[in-house]
């Protein structure tokens, strides 16, 4: 049913679709590994997509756009930090609020600034990410098998895709090989241990939430500047929630996060490629094929993944004196 070229095309699409999920998933990973649950990934991505689209449209510079996206996401992360860390609020509520806030503010401000119903003007030229051709792509391209894999699937994505993939080993290194990572993981497991070791729980948690903000900012910027050409209202379309699912799927580990998000990207790409499938007499309707990624996720989760244990101190504010 699927020839090699089709497979390459689907995998190529998977990588693109996985990238925003990967950024957001790693973002959630840092936050939740530090014990701050975050269902506000969606809102942060949306805010970032909006501001990056706006700034890129106005300045014509894609990198200024990225910075602006990160800034917007950091603002939201700051609110989350304030609620979850300083004021010991409910982290789930704060996340829900951030999703609402981003959903409303982006359109409100967008309409106010550009009058396009919340959209930003379409981006062109340097205001968007173009594809990057990796070295030797054209040399290797004619080779059988390896050629398409390298030239079509691996090469030719925008800069943020490679940054996202680079973020995986970087995150793993930061978490498992540095002092900061050790403390961050400890804060998510037992903040009292960190506190009594003479390290500020608040400081570490804010740092983690800030990293989460930066990564969500990249996720949103990639949506608006890499995949689409500008911001459109609600353009995250639930990807923040899917990233959250991927995070649990990945058992809060960076390399697994890469696998999980690639799997989600792959399932969506397959659904896109085969809008309906005929099995002799029965034709599976489009709705089924669109639901297939979600059905498969459940099947895989129930069949192979098993129980995932979240960081033990996750979701709880650190309170010494009740």
């Amino acid at each position, binding site marked *: 049913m699927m020839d090699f*070229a*089709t497979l390459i*095309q*689907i995998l190529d*699409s998977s990588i*693109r*679709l996985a990238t*925003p999920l990967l950024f957001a998933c790693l973002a959630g990973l840092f936050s939740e590994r530090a014990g701050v649950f975050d269902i506000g990934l969606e809102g942060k991505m949306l805010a970032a997509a909006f501001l990056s689209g706006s700034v890129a449209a106005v300045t014509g510079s894609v990198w200024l756009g990225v910075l602006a996206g990160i800034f917007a996401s950091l603002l939201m992360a700051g609110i989350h930090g304030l609620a979850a860390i300083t004021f010991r609020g409910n982290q789930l509520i704060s996340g829900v609020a951030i999703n609402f806030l981003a959903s409303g503010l982006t359109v409100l401000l967008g*309409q106010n600034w550009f009058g*396009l*119903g*919340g*959209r930003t003007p*379409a981006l062109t030229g340097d205001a968007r990410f173009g594809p990057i051709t990796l070295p030797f792509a054209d040399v290797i391209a004619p080779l059988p098998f390896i050629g398409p894999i390298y030239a079509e699937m691996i090469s030719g994505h925008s800069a943020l895709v490679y940054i996202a993939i680079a973020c995986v080993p970087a995150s793993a290194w930061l978490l498992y090989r540095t002092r900061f990572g050790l403390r961050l993981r400890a804060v998510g497991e037992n903040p009292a241990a960190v506190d009594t070791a003479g390290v500020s729980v608040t400081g570490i948690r804010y740092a983690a939430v800030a990293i989460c903000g930066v990564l969500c900012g990249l996720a949103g910027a990639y*949506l608006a500047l890499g*995949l*689409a*050409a500008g911001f*459109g*209202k*609600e*353009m995250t*379309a*639930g990807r923040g929630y899917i990233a959250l699912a991927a995070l649990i799927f990945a058992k809060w580990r960076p390399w697994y996060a890469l696998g999980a998000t690639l799997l989600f990207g792959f399932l*969506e*790409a397959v659904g*896109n*490629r085969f*809008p*309906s499938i005929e099995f002799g007499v029965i*034709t599976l*309707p*489009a*709705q089924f094929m*669109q*639901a297939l990624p979600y059905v498969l996720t459940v099947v895989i989760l129930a069949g192979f993944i098993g129980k995932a244990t979240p960081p033990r101190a996750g979701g709880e504010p650190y309170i010494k004196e009740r």
Partner: protein
Amino acid sequence: DPALIFDLGGKFDKSFNESAYEGAQRWAKETGGSYKELEMQSEAQREQFVRRMAETGANPIVVMSFSNIETLNTVAPDFPDTKFVLIDGVVEQPNVRSVMFAEHEGSYLVGMLAAMASESNTVGFIGGMDIPLIRQFGCGYAQGVKAVIPDATVIANMTGNTGAAWNDPVKGGELAKSQISQGADVIFAAAGGTGMGVLQAAADADILSIGVDSNQNHLHPGKVLTSMLKRVDNAVYEAFKAGDAVETGAVNMNLAAQGVGYALDENNKDLISEDMMTAVDAAAAKIASGELIVHDYYTDNTCPAVSF
């Protein structure tokens, strides 16, 4: 004053609500008049908003979308002196003007253009959600394609099943790329905001796309083959202009009534050759005269030209 009530997608949906908005704006600019407008946010507000608008004395009141058929059946009898205009649906009430568009006819024309412009004999269709209205677009389009090249391939995708399906340019772009990799070199998008991503991806890949509802040729000059026009703007404009004297009853905005059509302007004039134009205009004339009948999906919920 006249009034315009947008449906749930909101007035900037890059689709028919926005088109209605443009018609109202045109009227306001030309006449210097003012009008009221409202955006529905929830199912429960349908009756509420129409009724409240009628209570303010607005006349006529243009209501968008077939979703309001039931609403007008309930509300219109309570305001016999107010004229209502329903876009995209039929209501049999004495004070309602029901405006239907023959989307299949317009789509047929752009389908022909697509087939003629295609070099690979493979064209694409991307719809927002798998609902009858969108199938009507897709079915007309596929018929037009097959009329030119009987063995052409029409790849049809729908974006999704939730409200996000209309607002997901990223998914639109990815679907377009998937169709392109399957050989499509003209893609028709009928998916609201999602379509923006389709047009973008097509332009990036240097193939052609077809816009929908309003003239979207300008979005990527030279890259958008044409746009399937659904002149909701005209319908609104005329209703506003007629004021409370607007005629009631069913109006079929088909090709003959110039309710649908394809867009031709300086942005795409190099893309559409003389031959193409002649062929399409000939077909249009035949459809208008009734000589050529484009299958209407609504009549039997099937499409002879493509399976969804």
